[in-house]
């Protein structure tokens, strides 16, 4: 029983980052009908920014007091979010907007090209092997009722939750969030109501990129590494989360992300860690067979 709860907690921690990256995919897809294949690479950029900032500052890594560590964490997060946000805006303007239209494959292919270019650039700049990202959060393991959670896991989870809550607030309770929902449903009608649809596209890709960047920082710190192709598997799993959840509700993508994390943790804990990566694909197959519109329903594309 104790192992079950431990794996559950591990799963929720890991799943929260899947959810954040998947939300970025889902946001751009539901608002713009575009699959941004470069999204996982923006996540990768986030991790590398963390690497650059932390190693650039020559931070000792251990021995920081808690306050300094938290400040540094937020600082790195902020820089990464600015960098990835900017990257997202550039991507939208140069690649997505010109290729957007009725044919869904054009931006798909264009962003795939960007994705490959980014992977190879990272490889060229940083080498093909993972670089070590010094963890800034002082390692500490909290034990609650027999369940162990590390401080880094907690930091990752709290960051992810904060991001998801912020996104939810934006989408449901702000003027531009409302406009974003309107554009997702009926862009022509939204435009005729006075919404600058190009601006909403920029905002949307920008927000999704900021989210991916933050997730990249969290994961880079959690696994203390950044690698040129880290976006691949992570992005694929997050993309699967988006497909499985359907694009109707944000909450659905969050739930599926967490679900995936939990099931992976259970499979790792009870069966074999080798099967962990297969879980996502098994889930996708199951959903495609039995409920292709996604577990929680979608709009038609």
């Amino acid at each position, binding site marked *: 029983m104790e192992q079950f709860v431990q794996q559950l907690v591990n799963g929720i921690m890991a799943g929260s980052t899947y959810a954040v990256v998947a939300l970025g995919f889902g946001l751009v897809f539901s608002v713009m009908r575009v699959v941004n294949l470069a999204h996982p690479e923006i996540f990768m950029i986030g991790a590398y920014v963390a690497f650059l900032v932390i190693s650039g500052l020559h931070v000792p890594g251990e021995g920081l007091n808690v306050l300094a560590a938290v400040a540094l964490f937020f600082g790195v997060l902020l820089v990464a979010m600015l960098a990835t946000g900017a990257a997202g805006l550039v991507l939208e303007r140069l690649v997505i907007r010109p290729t957007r239209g009725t044919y869904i494959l054009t931006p798909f292919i264009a962003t795939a090209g960007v994705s490959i270019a980014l992977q190879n650039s990272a490889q060229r700049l940083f080498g093909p092997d993972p670089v070590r990202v010094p963890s800034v959060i002082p390692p500490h393991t909290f034990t609650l009722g027999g369940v162990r959670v590390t401080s880094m896991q907690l930091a990752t989870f709290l960051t992810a939750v904060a991001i998801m809550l912020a996104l939810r607030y934006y989408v449901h309770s702000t003027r531009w969030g409302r406009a974003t929902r309107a554009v997702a449903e009926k862009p022509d009608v939204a*435009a005729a109501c006075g919404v600058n649809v190009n601006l909403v596209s920029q905002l949307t890709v920008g927000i999704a990129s900021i989210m991916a960047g933050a997730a990249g920082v969290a994961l880079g710190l959690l696994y203390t590494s950044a690698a040129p192709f880290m976006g691949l598997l992570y992005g694929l799993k997050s993309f699967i989360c988006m497909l499985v959840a359907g694009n109707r509700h944000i909450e659905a993508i969050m739930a599926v992300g967490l679900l995936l994390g939990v099931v992976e943790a259970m499979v790792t804990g009870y069966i074999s860690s080798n099967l962990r990566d297969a879980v996502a694909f098994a889930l996708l197959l199951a959903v495609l067979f039995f409920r292709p519109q996604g577990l929680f329903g979608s709009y038609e594309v």
Partner: protein
Amino acid sequence: MSALLQVSGLEVAYGPVRAVRGVDLEVHQGEIRAILGANGAGKSSIIRAIMGLVKPRGGTVAFGGRALHKLLPHKVNGWGIAWVPEGRQVFSTLTVEENLLMGAFGRRHDQATDARQEQVMDMFPTLRERRKQLAGSLSGGEQQMLAIGRALMSNPRLLLMDEPSLGLAPKVVRFLFDLALEIRARGISILMAEQNARQALRVADYAYLLEVGEIRGGGSAREMEASETIRRVYLGG
């Protein structure tokens, strides 16, 4: 007196298909004008071109003397034109209230917006009842009211209505066309595209006849009602 809306030589094409061929029309301040025609005649294309949703291949659209035909829809809305699309097209995942707020998106959200929202809900009491409901759960007639209310929220000078009667029960249709008169009484001009010639001619000041993308005739509502062709083809004898 120059017209509020002046459309000259409008050409709209989708690939090789010329949907609108050299259309001239105008709407004067305080008028209701109707574009009559069958399905596929090109009525919606004219409306969409005025709104900036489709780029005309030729011709001009001027509003209050200002050239609009190169502008994006949100800019057209900003100059004072609002659109009631064909088939209602309410934002079904937004609440009634959010739909109305979207109508006023082009303006700052201030007291005037709140006042206008109250006005619209006075005009359509069932919208007030259902303000927190998702728009997708409303009936067809209620959605049409919401679509019109939403368009009125931007305080437009010209309302473009695309087939307002489509798919609605006769009693609702009559109510809607009476509403058009009320809207005109508030100083808002209307250009409507309609298949239902009988109702349209009841409220319009002037009507155009559109066939296969071309204006085949136009005249005051009385003249059009009296014309043989109209009576035979559109009013059923």
